[in-house]
């Protein structure tokens, strides 16, 4: 088992983008796993869905996470999901997000957590 070359990874971002650096850490982790050709799924869960909000204009000296999300596909991060219930609770409409993330309802969430080799929460 230890000689296997790839492990699928679910990276779970549970933090809003600018209060702490955890959302950025989650994106960096997803990109790193993708860069080393591991199958990566990135999930924004709960408070993490704020990271997907459109119209972000962070001040100078702060990395623009909304824009960074746009580069995920270039790094090969295949699938990006957003917690549908959390989006609704926060008044975020899917069409207004900074990235076309796939809304995940609870059955999809359960499947994501049950089907990846590794789950890394940030």
């Amino acid at each position, binding site marked *: 088992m230890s000689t*296997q070359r790839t492990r699928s990874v679910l990276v779970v971002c549970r933090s809003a983008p600018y209060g702490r650096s*955890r959302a950025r850490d989650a994106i*960096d*982790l997803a990109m790193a796993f993708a860069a*080393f050709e*591991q199958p990566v799924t990135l999930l924004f869960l709960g408070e993490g869905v704020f990271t997907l909000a459109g119209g972000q204009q962070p001040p100078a000296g702060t990395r623009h996470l909304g824009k960074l999300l746009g580069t995920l596909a270039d790094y090969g991060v295949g699938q990006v999901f957003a917690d549908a219930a959390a989006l609704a609770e926060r008044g975020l409409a899917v069409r207004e997000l900074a990235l076309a993330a796939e809304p995940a309802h609870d059955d999809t969430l359960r499947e994501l957590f049950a089907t990846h080799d590794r789950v890394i929460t940030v």
Partner: protein
Amino acid sequence: MIFALLVHDAPVGRHSSQAAYRFASELLAGGHTLFRVFFFGDGVHHSTRLNLTPGNETDLPQRWSRLAAEHGVDLVSCVGSALRRGIVDEAQARQHALEAVSLRDGFELSGLGQLVEASIRCDRLVVFGG
């Protein structure tokens, strides 16, 4: 079984960091292998050699360093997280003309690829944070 750990938080004042160390000790005592511990974000503060811990408290940087020496565990602090937080090794200190080295023996600075490799090589990856 082969384990790898990911540690998100600082050694001082965080229960999860105590838990990570206890978990590591116990799996080694059980005859398992700890391939690598990857310290990320505030977790890199584990790799300072300049901390002074009161005698009645647990000195996690020192404990990890000893554990690594005894059991051949790789202790890697994320270089991107570390440099921002004042954790520098000799090479970095020289390159940036800093007057001191803060990285503790037994730890090394490296990139996220080390975490990816650990994820591929291990049977179980356990995350500690909060």
